[in-house]
């Protein structure tokens, strides 16, 4: 059973209390210290009182600010180390993360990877660290808020003599008319917007108490931010997809469950004019073009009904938009960002059929590299048949032509050329800088006569319901810090001792401001100004006087 401590003034304080909640009498006091430590009003931290079950022990551990600061510093050190080498998401796309760190950074890189610093923010130990920090924030706040709230609620007007004397600001006035002076003091304090209470001729003035709740408000904000971070891992809360779309193509927007489709009409890449008067010098120094605009002109469609996967949906136009950096396209909680591009990818190749004997052309065909046709008619008995097509051509192990992928990185073709004089056709193999006649000498040949390229836009599709939670948390945090930092909790006690008036004053910060209030108070009431005993101490020490 915990023992309440009953103070002389009759107030019952919980075990562990340092200063009586009501009158402020020091219950457990270091007599040698001339100024009282007013942290948490000398109230009892709830966890200090009893230690029994394992739950209480865990609680006590995380209630300590020492533990809290340690966790903050551990997080600080961890993320600082995490910036020494790049995170795995920022290493070059073609690098193998398994070997990249060792190859690039040697033994340090190897350790970095082994300890999980390469994906720090998704490593289990970092998540645990943040979780423990969250626990510490919650536990320490509850543990301090409850008793502090109690102590501030139970304050009495009349304070114990020792409490008064041991404040940093303390002064005594020998008064001829104490009632009158106290009355004037009350008036002056009210003018300075203090809430003034009176009891047995003593005064207690207080303002800005709400600033004491600032830390708890901002800690609630932080907890909400952490919850927001965690919710990102909840299915459906966070969508992050990439969409590469060629000019002229339409595709379903990933992450939207085939509800939305996008057509990319054109990708625009603009640079600053190198002759621009304003920027001439900088552009010369940069040694190349500086980008001015990345933009994709797109049309967004919504699919009607709920088409089955793969089915051609009926599309209804939603809007046209120019998606630029800093100006994402927003629709239905989604954001579509212009995030990357590739310029001038091969799209179509044109070939001319030429009679080698007289260099006479017999028409031209255009082959769509993404969707070639089998037959191309040139008229007058000439036609071309595409026998085979290798978008990403190489010779495989057997020495046959093959394709590495379906991207037209290195297109190659086998054409059969039919002409009036060769009705059975001649075969021509064409690749970049290659023109072979694998089945003997031909009279005709295909000659590359033109290229059509097109750009590709890289989009990022996001839907993030956690943003609003994180944002709300951040706002609450800011309100909390502003509340705690931009306002001060000031208190002034005036106590009658016969014809003497004792005055003590306390603030949680900005003593200078409090002193200005006191200056006004003493000026109005004729009370003598209290002494700053901290300054006095240094002043005396430096002059070799006794403290």
């Amino acid at each position: 059973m915990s023992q309440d401590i009953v103070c002389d003034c009759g107030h019952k304080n919980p075990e562990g209390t340092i200063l009586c909640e009501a009158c402020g009498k020091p219950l457990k006091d270091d007599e040698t210290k001339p100024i009282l430590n007013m942290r948490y009003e000398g109230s009892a931290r709830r966890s200090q009182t009893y230690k029994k079950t394992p739950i209480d022990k865990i609680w006590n551990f995380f209630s300590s600010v020492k533990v809290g600061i340690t966790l903050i510093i551990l997080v600080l050190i961890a993320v600082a180390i995490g910036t020494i080498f790049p995170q795995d998401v920022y290493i070059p796309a073609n690098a193998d993360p398994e070997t990249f760190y060792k190859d690039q950074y040697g033994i340090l890189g190897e350790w970095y990877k082994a300890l999980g610093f390469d994906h720090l923010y998704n490593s289990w130990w970092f998540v645990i660290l943040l979780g423990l920090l969250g626990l510490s924030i919650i536990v320490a706040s509850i543990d301090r808020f409850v008793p502090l709230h109690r102590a501030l609620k139970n304050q009495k007007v009349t304070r114990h003599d020792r409490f008064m004397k041991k404040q940093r600001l303390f002064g005594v006035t020998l008064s001829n008319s104490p009632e009158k002076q106290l009355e004037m003091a009350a008036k002056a304090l009210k003018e300075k917007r203090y809430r003034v209470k009176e009891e047995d001729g003593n005064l207690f003035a207080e303002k800005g108490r709400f600033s004491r709740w600032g830390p708890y408000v901002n800690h609630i904000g932080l907890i909400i931010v952490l919850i927001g971070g965690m919710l990102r891992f909840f299915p459906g809360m966070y969508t992050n997809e990439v969409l590469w779309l060629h000019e002229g193509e339409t595709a379903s927007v990933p992450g939207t469950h085939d509800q939305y489709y996008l057509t990319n009409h054109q990708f625009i890449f603009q640079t600053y004019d190198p002759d621009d008067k304003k920027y001439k010098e900088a552009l010369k120094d940069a040694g190349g073009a500086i980008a001015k605009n990345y933009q994709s002109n797109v049309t967004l469609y919504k699919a009607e009904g709920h088409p089955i996967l793969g089915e051609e949906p009926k599309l209804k136009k939603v809007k046209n938009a120019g998606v630029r950096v800093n100006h994402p396209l927003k629709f239905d909680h989604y954001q579509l960002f212009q995030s990357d591009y590739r310029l001038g990818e091969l799209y179509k190749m044109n070939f001319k059929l030429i009679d080698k004997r007289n260099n006479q052309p017999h028409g031209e065909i255009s082959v769509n590299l993404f969707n070639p046709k089998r037959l191309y008619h040139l008229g007058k008995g000439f036609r071309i048949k595409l026998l085979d097509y290798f978008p990403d051509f190489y010779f495989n192990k057997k020495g046959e032509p093959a394709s590495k992928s379906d991207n037209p990185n290195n297109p190659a073709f086998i054409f059969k050329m039919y002409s009036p004089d060769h009705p059975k056709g001649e075969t021509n193999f064409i690749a970049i800088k290659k023109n072979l006649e694998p089945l003997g000498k031909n009279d005709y040949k295909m000659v590359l006569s033109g290229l059509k390229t097109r750009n590709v836009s890289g989009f990022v599709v996001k839907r993030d319901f956690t943003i609003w939670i994180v944002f709300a948390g951040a706002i609450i945090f800011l309100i909390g810090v502003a509340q705690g930092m931009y306002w001060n909790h000031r208190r002034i006690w005036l106590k009658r001792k016969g014809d003497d008036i004792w005055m003590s004053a306390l603030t949680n910060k900005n003593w200078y401001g409090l002193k200005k209030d006191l200056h006004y108070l003493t000026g109005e009431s004729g009370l003598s100004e209290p002494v700053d005993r901290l300054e006095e101490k240094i002043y005396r020490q430096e002059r070799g006087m006794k403290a």
Partner: protein
Amino acid sequence: MHPRKKRLVIRTVIILLLAAAIGFTIYQIFNKDKTVATGDKAPDFVLTDVNGHQVKLSDFKGKAVMLNFWATWCDPCKKEMPYIENVYKTLNKKKIVILAVNIGESQFAVQNFMDKYHIDFPIVMDKNRDVTDAYHIGPIPTTFFINKDGEIEEKVVGSMPSEKYIRQKLSEIEP
């Protein structure tokens, strides 16, 4: 409730909640790779074959389906194609369906491939890769064995080694 007991309950609840939150987050981090796995319902789709006919997966309800994802440029895919073709020839088509999904290639490429390898089993074309994405296909070939109720019984990533292997797997899902 006695205040001290109440306090203990509150403390226990807060600590357990935090522990659960940390555990959940770590679990999600290690399981974030989305897949279509054994036991899942096979996502339904409609795709067109080389002749322009629409094929719908759910139309095969009551039959077992072997669903193969492949591309013409993929060497391991080429390797298993003859096995599949041979199995297809002797298949009980009333009970089992073989369907291959080509990933994102042109009609020309698919038709050419079918001619070259003499393929008769139905191939549908996933032009926009929507189906491929829905099945979270990583390396190809990937083959799903789907039972008569439309549930995935097995997923094989990589080239299947022999005809016998395919027959064995098919016999396991045959209704």
